[in-house]
């Protein structure tokens, strides 16, 4: 029987790996991949809590499904923005997007 | 020896499963959990082997059928009636040189055909072969089928990208665009049998069809739509722009030779048979037939008959229809199939609800008639809309030669294949 905190620690580890990806990568698409890892960690958390605390009520899974939809919407808009930026500036390196820097 | 009389007649897979379990537990004295794991592994290997042996037969069948459609004989040299032709082809492919193009991504290049084959073989895990024989009776079988199709798209993109060849990359892009686009009406059309059966599990859908009528009578539009979009999903004619040799130089598998190319071909032919099996399961009643619940072996026979019928229609449509142009392909999907799928789903849901509200004691025949007439209404509505738009396009084009060409183009683009016959007598009556 797997204790609940194992799942939560796994989700925390995945979240922190995604966080490292967001903070340390140069390519904007790679940053988006890190964000995807973080969203997946969140959904693992939700489903684990559903299973361990309230498995007879489906509310936990409803929450997770809505988060799925939001993640899909966010990644599609993010990639559209990246492609649009690539068309203008011919680069997707995040450090070079510095038009608004002081 | 295990007691075989409590399973139905001809329940061969369960016989062997139980025999193996008895052998492992009593003769070799293994603990029950380990014996269960070994039993499951043997069952998986058996089902996978059965799925992989199917293309040997269906490749021969398809070549013979396509040849007869083209008024020639097909392979008849290797073995009686050319039955050993597939073996000859495999031996030839094994003997070919295994080239990896320079600059290709070795791991991804070698992994792509494998992922392609895996994505098709794992579909056989959820297809119910008889009333008691299904690989994994999960309650999200339909969603599993959709997911595995997505995995096939990934395999094609891996293959196209790693070949270090611009034509392969373009072919992979086009293929991925087509596959992702045609998934949308396929998923919506798949929701119709789920709606009618009340469950996403494949065995539940077949049981529901066994209790009422086959869903091809209750939802013919959805059945046709699922069939057509599945044919587009496997990249078959008339949607085979992506890999036809006269087009984009054979598309994403241009750099593959030898057995890796053989694996792409294997996955394509197996996928064709698999979607025939899925159409048979979801719309033609699967293993259901007379006496199929008492004797599961008859269930397998009925299932194979229906699958081969659907596969014959796949080969028939491949030999009959011309290839669709790539811009027609996508506009056909987004402007015709997706609204039609949504319309079919809404019509089925509304008709089902109306039957439940106003005819509460309705039997299966009544419900089938109501749903069928709702579908006929939808088809008539669609034809009216197409006819009206074609009439407008033709009226706007009277008197201009190049505009007339454009109206014909628009007619061909909007019509889709099943209305092509409607249009040819219509111009005569309009003029």
């Amino acid at each position, binding site marked *: *029987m797997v204790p609940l905190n194992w799942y939560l620690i796994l989700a925390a580890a995945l979240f922190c790996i995604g966080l490292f990806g967001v*903070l340390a*990568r140069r390519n904007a698409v*790679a940053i988006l991949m890190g964000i995807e890892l973080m969203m997946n960690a969140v959904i693992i958390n939700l489903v684990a809590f559903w299973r361990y605390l309230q498995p007879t009520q489906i509310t936990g899974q409803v929450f997770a499904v809505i988060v799925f939809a939001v993640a899909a919407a966010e990644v599609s808009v993010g990639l559209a923005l990246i492609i649009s930026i690539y068309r203008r500036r011919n680069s997707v390196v995040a450090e070079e997007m510095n038009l608004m820097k002081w | 020896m295990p007691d075989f009389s409590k399973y139905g007649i001809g329940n061969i897979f369960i016989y062997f499963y139980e025999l193996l379990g008895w052998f492992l537990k009593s003769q070799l004295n293994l603990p029950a959990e380990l014996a269960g794991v070994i039993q499951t592994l043997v069952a998986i290997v058996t089902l996978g082997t059965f799925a992989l042996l199917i293309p040997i037969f269906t490749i021969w069948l398809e070549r013979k059928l396509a040849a007869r459609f083209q008024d020639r004989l097909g392979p008849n040299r290797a073995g009686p009636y050319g039955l050993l032709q597939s073996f000859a082809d495999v031996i030839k492919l094994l003997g070919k040189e295994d080239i990896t193009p320079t600059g290709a991504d070795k791991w991804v290049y070698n992994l792509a055909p494998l992922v392609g084959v895996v994505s098709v073989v794992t579909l056989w895990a959820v297809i119910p072969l008889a009333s008691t024989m299904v690989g994994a009776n999960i309650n999200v079988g339909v969603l599993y089928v959709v997911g595995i199709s997505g995995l096939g798209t990934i395999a094609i993109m891996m293959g196209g990208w790693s070949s270090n060849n611009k034509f392969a990359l373009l072919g992979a892009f086009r293929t991925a665009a087509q596959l992702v686009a045609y998934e949308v009406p396929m998923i919506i059309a798949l929701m119709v049998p789920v709606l009618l059966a009340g469950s996403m599990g494949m065995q539940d859908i077949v049981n529901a069809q066994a209790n009422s009528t086959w869903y091809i009578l209750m939802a013919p539009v959805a059945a046709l739509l699922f069939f057509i979009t599945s044919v587009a999903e496997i990249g078959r004619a008339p949607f085979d722009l992506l890999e036809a040799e006269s087009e984009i130089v054979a598309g994403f598998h241009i750099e593959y030779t030898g057995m890796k190319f053989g694996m792409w071909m294997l996955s394509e032919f197996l996928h064709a048979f698999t979607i025939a099996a899925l159409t048979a399961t979801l719309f033609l009643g699967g293993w259901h037939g007379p006496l199929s619940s008492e004797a599961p072996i008859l269930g397998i026979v009925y299932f194979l008959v229906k699958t081969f019928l659907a596969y014959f229609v796949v080969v028939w449509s491949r030999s009959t229809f011309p290839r669709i142009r790539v811009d027609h392909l996508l506009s056909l999907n987004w402007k015709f199939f997706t609204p039609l799928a949504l319309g079919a789903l809404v019509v089925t849901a509304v008709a089902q609800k109306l039957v439940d509200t106003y005819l509460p004691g309705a039997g299966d025949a009544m419900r089938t008639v109501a749903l069928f007439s709702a579908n006929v209404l939808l088809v008539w509505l669609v034809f009216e809309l197409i006819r009206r738009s074609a009439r407008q396009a033709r009226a706007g084009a009277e008197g201009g030669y190049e505009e007339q060409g454009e109206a014909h183009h628009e007619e061909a683009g909007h019509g889709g294949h099943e209305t092509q016959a409607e249009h040819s007598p219509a111009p005569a009556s309009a003029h």
Partner: protein
Amino acid sequence: MTVSQILFLVVAAVMLISAVLVVTLRNLIHAALWLIATLFFVAVLYVLLDAGFMAAAQVVLYIGAIAILIIFAMMLTRRVMADETVQINSQWWLGGLVAAAAFVAVAGLLNASAWPGLPAVDDATITNSIKMLGTQLTSPDGFVIPFQIASILLTVALVGAIAVAGEKK
């Protein structure tokens, strides 16, 4: 160590290794393929958690749509075919420190509290979970409003993505 614990540890280990490869590989296409592997192992984890619909939805949505979208975007935004430039920026050590600190803090907090064990749930609940999910998502005293707002959000995102990324003719 029960079988389920061993299974969980194996899946968790492979998933974390794939995730580390996603964020450290120099070849971005390989990183995207390892992302697909990570998402697949997350789906396996959902199966271990008796959430079959979530597992299937994960494969359909994340692997079948989002991962393909990411691979497409990656292929469309490359300047050369073989891109081997450095993919870690100059402050990676700070990012690593922050991530490690966050993990240690959260894991310490999690281990300090007592968590309930796994409640037994009968098969009927598991098989009926999809029906319950569908009923809850569409019933007025369930979650139909968040569901509809999520679908409006998706439509807005769809229109917005096409408007932003479409070619200006």
